[in-house]
């Protein structure tokens, strides 16, 4: 037994984030901590990493009771953590990031050579390939994650906590991560992964502990259990992992994109001659590894970026290069990728936010009708189950899932002809995902055209009637929804296959 947590309790005001949680971690295992967002997984791990002080409970590390004061103490004990949001200095090299805080120095001058050498050594030892001399900002997210893991290993971590490690990875990178984890375990390390993804638990972990609303529900062996069983434990009721839907009955084209080209923020060609269409009554999914032009495509379609060539038509009307306002008024709904930066004014109330984009409709002679805004907010709160049901609450104070419900509710209630949904369920828990997926299918069934852009293959395969794969700014393949598999999509996303 490497680690034992007994009766861990942590309260934030009236909220009990951890309610007498017991957890046992065996040496050399991969242990998954499974639970919905807000279930208390990260809180528990943050206690273990010394970021929070528990209100009750004890931590037994290698047979001795310890009180972990701060992360430095945790690191000294041999506990390392890789956060969901990487904590790397973008302009530093890989090696500089890894040795940060434990620099190799000669006469107070940083010994870069020695650092690079050390990093090379540990990266070879654990099979985590990185180039120590390149800047972190120029490497992929998957590689940044390796840097984070190396950072923890460099500091002598025996127990490695990975917080939602696959959230940002492609299927192939997830595969790689799995191999890395197996190798680390073989080298005598122990790993805890925090996740809400069921497939990963079964795929990666030896044992799994399910947490729901701050309480420990069960610890079981991963082998011999199914996704449905785990989902049931995690949510506390039966959930539909797959949305039931009838075959699509597409009608006329709503969105027509022809020969669209665009550059990204640094002026590099990001879209190369993209043409496709979305018809009424179908969901078209766009799959691809992050950064292959999806963001620029969506920005061009919604007016947030001016294309350099090509045309965008919605129901026959040319909207190429129009303002976001014009495009919204032409009946295009947009669930943006970044709900906190784009989708909501966080310092506005829910009522003020449901009017965003349509706020002129709530205006008479320049004066806003707050009464009407509150009415709409109440309707959305009711129909989309936003909690807490308070139109006067600041958007900032809602959880991510409820923020997303406000956005989805707003965009659906506007009744657009074309709905562009980008990563609509990122970071949400199973219950909320199910809810939003059902709503998107309902939009389709109501005769709307839906364009779904997502990095989650499951989501695309689950919802889309047709799937377009983007690679290096081009649509390289189209696959019928029912013919898609993770393998063939994954291959196409990496530029393989007939179309590339």
């Amino acid at each position, binding site marked *: 037994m490497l680690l034992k947590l007994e009766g861990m309790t942590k309260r934030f005001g009236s909220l009990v*984030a951890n309610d007498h949680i017991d957890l046992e971690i065996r040496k050399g295992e991969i242990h998954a901590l499974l639970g919905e967002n*807000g279930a208390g997984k*990260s809180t528990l791990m943050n206690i273990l990493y010394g970021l929070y002080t528990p209100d009750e409970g004890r931590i037994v590390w290698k047979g001795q009771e310890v009180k972990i004061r701060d992360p430095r103490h945790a690191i000294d004990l041999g506990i390392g953590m890789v956060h969901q949001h990487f904590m790397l200095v973008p302009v530093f090299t890989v090696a500089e990031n890894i040795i940060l805080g434990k620099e190799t120095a000669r006469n107070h001058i940083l010994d870069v050579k020695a650092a690079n050498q050390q990093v090379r050594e540990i990266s070879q030892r654990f099979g985590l390939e990185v180039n120590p001399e390149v800047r972190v900002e120029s490497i992929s997210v998957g590689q940044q994650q390796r840097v984070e893991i190396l950072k923890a290993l460099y500091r002598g971590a025996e127990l490695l906590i990975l917080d939602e490690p696959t959230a940002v990875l492609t299927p192939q990178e997830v595969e790689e991560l799995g191999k890395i984890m197996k190798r680390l375990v073989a080298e005598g390390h122990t790993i805890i992964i925090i996740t809400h993804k069921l497939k990963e638990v079964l795929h990666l972990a030896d044992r799994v502990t399910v947490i729901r609303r701050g309480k420990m529900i069960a610890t079981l062996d991963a082998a011999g259990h199914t996704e449905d069983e785990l989902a049931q434990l995690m949510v506390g009721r039966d959930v539909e992992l797959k949305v039931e839907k009838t075959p699509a009955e597409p009608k006329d084209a709503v969105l027509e994109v022809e020969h669209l080209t665009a550059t990204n923020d640094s002026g590099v060609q990001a879209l190369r001659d993209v043409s496709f269409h979305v018809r009424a009554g179908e969901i078209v999914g766009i799959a691809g590894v992050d950064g292959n032009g999806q963001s620029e495509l969506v920005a061009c379609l919604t007016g947030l970026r001016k294309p350099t060539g090509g045309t965008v038509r919605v129901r026959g009307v040319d909207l190429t290069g129009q303002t976001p306002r014009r495009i919204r008024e032409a009946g295009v709904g947009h669930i943006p990728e970044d709900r906190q930066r784009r989708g909501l*004014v966080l310092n506005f109330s829910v009522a003020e936010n449901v009017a*965003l984009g349509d706020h002129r409709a709530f205006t008479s002679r320049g*004066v806003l009708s707050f009464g009407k805004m509150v009415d709409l907010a109440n309707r959305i709160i009711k129909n989309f189950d936003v909690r807490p049901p308070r139109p006067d609450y600041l958007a900032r104070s809602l*959880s991510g899932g409820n923020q997303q419900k406000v956005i989805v509710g707003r965009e659906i209630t506007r009744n657009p002809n074309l709905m562009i949904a980008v990563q609509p369920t990122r970071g949400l828990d199973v219950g909320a995902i199910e809810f939003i997926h059902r709503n998107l299918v309902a939009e389709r069934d109501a005769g709307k055209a839906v364009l779904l852009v997502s990095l989650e293959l499951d989501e695309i395969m689950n919802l889309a009637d047709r799937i377009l794969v983007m690679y290096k700014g081009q649509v390289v393949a189209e696959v019928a929804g029912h013919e898609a598999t993770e393998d063939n999509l994954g291959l196409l996303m990496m530029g393989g296959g007939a179309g590339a």
Partner: protein
Amino acid sequence: MPKESRFVESLKGGLRAISTPVLATIVGLLVGMVCIVVAGKDPVKAAEAFVRAVAGEPRMFGETLVSTIPLIFTGLAVAFAYRCGLFNIGVEGQYLMAQIAAVLVGVYWTPPAGLTWLHPLLTLAAAALAGALWAGIVGVLKAYRGIHEVINSIMLNYVGLFMADWLLKYYLRPDNSRAASYDLQESAWLSQGLIEGSRLHTGLWIALGAAVVVWFILFKTTLGYEIRAVGTSPGAAEYGGISVARSIILAMAISGALSGLAGGVQTMAINHRFNETSSFVNYGFDGIAVALVGRLHPAGVVLAALLFGALDRSGPMMQAMADVPKAVIWIVQGSVIFFVAAEGLWDFLKKRRAKKEVKTA
């Protein structure tokens, strides 16, 4: 949650909002007291002098309000721009240009008989317009060229200062012996004497009216909604079809108009001319402090302006009565700003911690 608690909640929210500046003020005054004691002066005498200077008799209070009025305008100007995410540090220049405009209309235009009531209105409008244009330059450069408003507004302060000086010396005065422009015609004056024996003038009503209008624009109109959205989340504003450029230009122009009102009212009610000046009057810079201490809310700005007006007024009296150097007043002002800002910092840290907890919970 029971219904009645919502009222209690909003009441609590209001109290919480003003508790910081009030506390900061008290602490700032205490720091001032300590300085007085350290300097070997009598703090009780100083406090007495302070109270007498600020409100010892009606006319004293009237004079305190006279000092308060321009600060209300400039505080509102800074707060309004800030709500759009803009730091208008150019209030000084806008104020000066507005004074020139007020002189132009107040001196050189003679209203036809029967229309004399138009004179103050037009003079004031010219002042507001001049301020709006001067600030509008900054807004346009920011909106279309991305040039930072702080740089531009500082530079325009100096352009304004020397341009006003040049206009005065070459065009607006009879000869070199006079260190001021021609006097405004009396029809363009704002009347004084709201409180007998003081110079308190009708500009007070204009200032309070401006505060109400600013509040209304910010929180009740579409324009205010758009400006606040751009100020706190430009990305979301753009997504929502709000023209960020338009909001920036309008916010800057309205902010400049408020600065302009400060210059106009001061010229029409107190100076009645444009006095030669080689440096800024500081109403603009004090306006930054007033906006900050007033928490960027029009009501807060009015109260903060009163505080700063009182501090301003009390300096000479404390010097005369208690032999307290005027610098002590600056220390008090400085500490009040510091503690308000420090609380802001504290809030920020608290919020970040809360956010972190929510995120990781």
